[in-house]
């Protein structure tokens, strides 16, 4: 009897303390799929914010990436989701906004720090409403083994013909795999291959928006040229590349067995911890005689506000901070390879990551051609790019046949292309 009285007293006290502290401090919860970044948020990013806003307490609460979309949807439906929602790019988040789960952020201070390309993944189709603050993008390029380049007396190629000259030299030497990429998982062929070198051929945003308004086609002009350029990689890939998976490729490069690794900037931190040699990066080579260069600066992650949050004011304060230059610097350096999308200048300390992000000043940015609008229908544009890119590299279809397949797939449902 005494014990239970004590227990109730304790509980009541805890509740009181809880209520008392809640009056001064607001607790915001962030929903996210980046469970790898938990310690970075808790130890590096959030303490800086909480030091400036002592009355706002932020909790980073991630879910496993594969379960995130489903878990978030049911939490939002049940009204138990956190105040801040990490946004997937394009349709997954657009659907949440259209269902009224994400708040419009048109009037958020700090939003002016983001360009149209940066916002493109989190706006309505008509461009009228933006609903997430862009956080980071990933950039494509080529990572290379500096020791091998020094040994063979090679230099970073800038044009396509220099690129092939370098590949030929490595192949002639015979000790190293010139290009480290496999086609077994298919997505690398499309992502690190086609979408990596492609923007130089289809002139970045011009080509990508052309697909959306129907003025460009996958089976002609720049897009066809990109498929053809990809097909020329086949002789330089490693023996048995048809069965080489993404982890295989990472291992081959990290073990120093290959010279050039077509990559995404997210691989930088992987090689920082696995490769024992110096590695550098060069941007996708431009076709000979072309002055402008284009890079895939793919919008990947953003953060929005739960429309039903009771702490809207605090959430907006946090989001404005996320839009600031201070957050941009913090985030880009804590996660090398994930680059802030802010137009504010950011100093990145990791040398290879700095090289990647430096290309933004030299080249025009675009995003992957299939992500906005074009992957809504059946067949799925992104999935078709995977299989076609892999098949072109495997030599089972020609570039023209592959390009025709993708174009036909788009024409099957996408009105502007019909």
């Amino acid at each position, binding site marked *: 009897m005494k014990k239970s009285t004590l227990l109730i007293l304790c509980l009541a006290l805890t509740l009181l303390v809880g209520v008392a502290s809640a009056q001064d401090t607001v607790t915001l919860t962030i929903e996210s799929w980046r469970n790898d970044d938990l310690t970075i948020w808790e130890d590096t990013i959030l303490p800086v914010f909480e030091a400036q806003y002592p009355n706002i307490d932020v909790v980073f609460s991630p879910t496993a990436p594969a379960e995130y979309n489903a878990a978030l949807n049911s939490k939002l439906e049940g009204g138990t989701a956190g105040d801040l929602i990490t946004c997937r790019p394009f349709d997954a988040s657009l659907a949440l906004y259209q269902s009224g789960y994400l708040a419009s952020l048109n009037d958020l201070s700090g939003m002016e720090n983001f360009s149209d390309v940066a916002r493109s993944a989190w706006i309505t189709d008509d461009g009228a409403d933006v609903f997430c603050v862009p956080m980071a993008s990933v950039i494509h390029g080529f990572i290379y083994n500096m020791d091998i380049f020094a040994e063979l007396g090679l230099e970073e190629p800038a044009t396509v013909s220099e690129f092939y000259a370098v590949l030929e030299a490595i192949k002639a030497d015979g000790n190293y795999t010139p290009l480290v990429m496999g086609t077994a998982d298919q997505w690398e062929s499309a992502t690190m291959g086609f979408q990596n070198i492609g923007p130089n051929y289809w002139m970045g945003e011009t080509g990508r928006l052309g697909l959306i308004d129907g003025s460009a086609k996958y089976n002609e002009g720049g897009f066809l040229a990109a498929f053809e350029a990809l097909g020329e990689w086949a002789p330089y890939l490693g023996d048995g590349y048809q*069965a080489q998976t993404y982890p295989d490729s990472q291992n081959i490069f990290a073990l120093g067995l290959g010279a050039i690794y077509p990559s995404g900037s997210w691989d930088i931190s992987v090689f920082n911890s696995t490769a024992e040699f110096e590695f550098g990066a060069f941007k996708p080579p431009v076709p000979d005689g072309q002055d402008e260069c284009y890079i895939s600066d793919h919008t990947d992650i953003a953060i929005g506000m739960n429309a039903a949050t009771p702490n809207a004011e605090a959430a907006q304060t946090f989001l404005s901070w996320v839009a600031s230059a201070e957050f941009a610097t913090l985030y880009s350096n804590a996660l090398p390879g994930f680059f802030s999308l802010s137009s504010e200048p950011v100093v990145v300390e990791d040398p290879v990551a700095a090289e990647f992000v430096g290309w933004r000043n030299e080249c025009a940015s675009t995003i992957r051609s299939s992500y906005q609008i074009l992957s809504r229908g059946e067949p799925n544009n*992104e999935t078709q790019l995977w299989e076609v890119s892999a098949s072109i590299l495997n030599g089972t279809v020609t570039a023209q046949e592959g390009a025709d397949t993708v174009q036909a797939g788009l024409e099957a449902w996408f009105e502007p292309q019909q």
Partner: protein
Amino acid sequence: MSKKAFPWHIVVFLAPAVIIYTLFMIYPLLDSLRLSLYTVPEQGGAEVFIGLGNYQRLFTDPFWQPQITRALANTFEFFVFHMLVQNPLALLLATLLASRFVAGRAIYRTLIFTPSVLSVVLIGFIWQLILSPVFGRALFAQIGIRLPPLLGQVETALPVVSLISVWQWVGVPMMLFLAALISIPDELIEAARVDGATALDVFWRVKLPLIMPTVGIVAVLTFVGNFNAFDLVYTTQGALGAPDYSTDLLGTLFYRTFFGFQLQLPNQTMGTAVAGVMFLIILAGVLIYLFTIQRRLVANTVEM
């Protein structure tokens, strides 16, 4: 005549199994079949009843029809490999292991059975490493073999995946055959021998006819297992059944459709229609077995 008390104990003993089976197998199955008769309109909103519309689309729509026929053909090929390689091999192994002249039978039996108690994911990963152009190539190069990228070529991927599955599961039919072979009374075999039958005669004329019921059961289990297959392909080839859909089974097609894949949004009503097709195929196969083959087998046994 005294009235017997209602056998409550039977109800009590059956209840846990019946309740769990109904809740976790029968109800989801029926609900999934129900869902396959609905569709979500393009503008969103509640599900609308469309009868067999999804199934019709699956088999006539220019987008779905090639996918379902390809998945059906691949799954059938996967099944044929098991019927032609796994089951005869299992029968051969079981016959050898049932023989008294083979030493170390218990060791062989255990070794051959071991893969089937391991996780499919583990098996897939190990074989991917063995056949990998990075690790496997170095391994095979030691013995002078230049390993082709078996899992990456359209022509070889499905046969190789099927053989990996055969390697993993051959122990199960082998055990079933072995149990059946051991239970054959010695008198029958001895009588045949006395009549002058060779070892081969004994196998074809005595043993095989007597284990026919087991052969039938093994065939049905193989059929059900293969038309439900998903995990091995998912582990070694990914959800797209790479390369170029050459290993895309009904299971992976269902997975992509129902749960979505990368940028492909999930389509649950269409996904359940694919699952419905799988269910109907398996149901048809099992019914054919029950009403033709097993009935004949039972009839034969009774005559004996």
